[in-house]
């Protein structure tokens, strides 16, 4: 933009009337218009249009081969009576609470522990952040080896004399979901920790200094200085957590495919299998719409509250 301003000035300096000059200043520069319109056009073709189409497909029955037939809200009434969908919804809530809650607690705790510069602290930070670097599918392959019969998990339990707990972790409907949450958490904690570390660094040390002068102990400073100062980071973390929970797909698919018999099914995996395995693209689109509304509701709810507090 800054390179543009002199150019505008030069042309207008060639002798136009003051009136013309004002009009010209009000009109946005063509480059600015291009910067807005070109991404908007690209976005429209690749994001908005497919998204709107997704809404339309959710009102149709479509096998991907023949043209879609419009069936109104048929897919949504079917969703309401679908036990697998209800199970997936419950699992998604469990996932949101456990995966989201524990990664916030774990990430925040780790950030507090590792925020002060001590010898070797860089090593621990790096160690916690390393899982984020791996693709989730690679993570899943590693954890699959960990969980396999007579694998590391079973050997560990045997070593401490708890062999009666051994079970086929990923094949047992009681444990499959939790066995998938663990590797997802292992990765997410490092990510949340980095967000909080950045937030903690941004707090003015003078605030802590002043609180300490006033005789506040460590817990009081955490409660009344650190946490209120992190409100901005919390908004980011919450959005990241909710979006990551609802789009969690790869690790579940790579470890269990949502099985055994739908016991670790999430909305995202059910959407995929409905659309691309059962070839019920209309029904899959309806599930996608539900996921979209859930994500929007949670995030909008938080943002509206946050803005109201600011105002």
């Amino acid at each position, binding site marked *: 933009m800054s390179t543009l301003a002199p150019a505008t000035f030069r042309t207008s300096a060639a002798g136009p009337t003051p009136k013309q000059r004002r009009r010209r200043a009000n009109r946005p520069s063509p480059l600015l218009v291009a910067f807005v319109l070109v991404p908007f056009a690209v976005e429209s073709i690749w994001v908005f249009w497919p998204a709107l189409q997704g809404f339309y497909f959710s009102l149709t029955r479509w096998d991907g*081969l023949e043209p879609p037939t419009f069936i109104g809200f048929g897919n949504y009434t079917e969703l309401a009576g679908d036990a697998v969908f209800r199970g997936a919804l419950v699992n998604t809530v469990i996932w949101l609470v456990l995966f989201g809650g524990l990664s916030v607690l774990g990430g925040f705790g780790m950030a507090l522990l590792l925020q002060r510069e001590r010898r070797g602290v860089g090593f621990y930070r790096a160690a916690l952040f390393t899982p984020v670097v791996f693709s989730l599918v690679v993570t899943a392959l590693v954890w699959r080896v960990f969980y396999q019969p007579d694998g590391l998990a079973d050997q560990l339990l045997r070593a401490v004399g708890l062999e009666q707990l051994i079970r086929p972790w990923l094949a047992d409907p009681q444990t499959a979901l939790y066995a998938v949450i663990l590797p997802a958490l292992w990765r997410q904690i490092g990510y949340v920790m980095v967000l909080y570390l950045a937030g903690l660094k941004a707090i003015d040390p003078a605030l802590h200094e002043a609180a300490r002068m006033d005789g506040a102990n460590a817990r009081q400073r955490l409660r009344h200085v650190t946490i209120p100062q992190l409100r901005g980071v919390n908004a980011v973390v919450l959005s990241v957590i909710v979006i990551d929970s609802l789009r969690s797909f790869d690790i579940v698919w790579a470890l269990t495919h949502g099985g055994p018999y739908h016991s670790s099914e999430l909305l995202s995996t059910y959407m995929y299998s409905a659309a691309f395995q059962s070839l019920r693209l209309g029904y899959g689109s309806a599930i996608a719409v539900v996921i979209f509304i859930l994500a929007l509701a949670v995030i909008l709810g938080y943002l509206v509250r946050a803005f109201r507090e600011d105002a």
Partner: protein
Amino acid sequence: MSDFDPSRRRFLGHLGLAGVGALGASSLLSACASSASGPADKASGAISLQSNLSSPQAKAAMEKIIENFNKQGSGRATVNTIASETYRTQLPTYLTSANPPDLYTWYAGSVANNYASKNLLLDVSDVWQGLGDYPQSLRNISTDPTGKQIFVPMTNYWWGFFYRKSNFAKWGVQEPKTWAEFITLCQTLKSKGVAPIGIGLGDTPWVASAWFDYLNIRINGAPFHRELLAGKQRFDDPKVKAVFARWREVLPYFDPKGKAYPFQEATTALLANKTGMFLIGTFFADAAPKDALGDLDFFQFPIIDPAVPVAEEAPTDGFFASAKTANPAGTKALLTYLASVQAQETYIQSSSGIVLPAHPKAKAADSPLVVKGKAMLDNAKELTQFFNRDSSDALQPTADTALTKFIDKPDQIDAILREWQAGAEKVFKG
């Protein structure tokens, strides 16, 4: 070709959405393929063959066959090989496009019939007039419900209980012929401290469908099985429940760890003497070390009701053609060549796995295992293929859910069959 089924499932698992990402690239490819066969002189132009045989040996074999065909002078053809998982998801797009490739590798049976019912496939009954040597069983699975042939088979393979000869000798047991002998065998093996029946359902739950297919064709017969998979019978029918009653008799002899690992590891368990036998298709041998193959043998799924005509699972791979081909004569000439002894022997010699040529006079590999497998299929009164091939890929997940749940909770069989029927109805309804 024989390793197609498992790799397809595994790719789905490991790549997940990545497969969807690859779609863009493949539609470009298909666009190239169809434009290569160009509209300019389509009627006399080269036939384009769309192939999913993407393993290096199979790809080379197909290219060699096409090269031989071109030398013959009865037409010209090109082959376009595409990664099998991409191919699976893109096949409907190829067939429904305005200017589709002429010929496709795919499966016989209901998958092909489904496309035929939408008038997407070329009637190749002319080609079949020259295939008098082919057995009736192969003709049946290449014929659509209106009575015309729409498919030309190239190869098939078989399923059976595989075991190590040295182990059976060591344990002093023989191959069982009947269900009663089979149960006795399971008891004997269990008393020797071996898990009698290996299985691999973790990540490959579709392997359980082999048990359902075989029990159903042994108890209720192949025609009922086909009708059931086509939606003309119900999964909560008492005849289906009878299948699970039999299955339950041998459930205690299954390897409990089989739920957690895929069939490749179940193969390892069999070779490491941890399990006694393993109901699997010949493609499992791809995951086995070459030196172990000599010690492997198999027996036919035991006969349960001698009154039921014997049927065997023989997943059949081959070709069908687009109804919109601009050069039907040339396409049929190529199909005739692909069905010949010469083309199929070229394929068998160059491919790596255990597969049988569809032409009865084409020479299969001469290992004792292959001879025995071929004899079993030749003696079968009827052939079925496999659950997903006799129904659809869309129905397969409903079977995976029902069967793994049954293996875990056999007491809930009534509820499981009700759920299965409800899930299947959704798939048939679309």
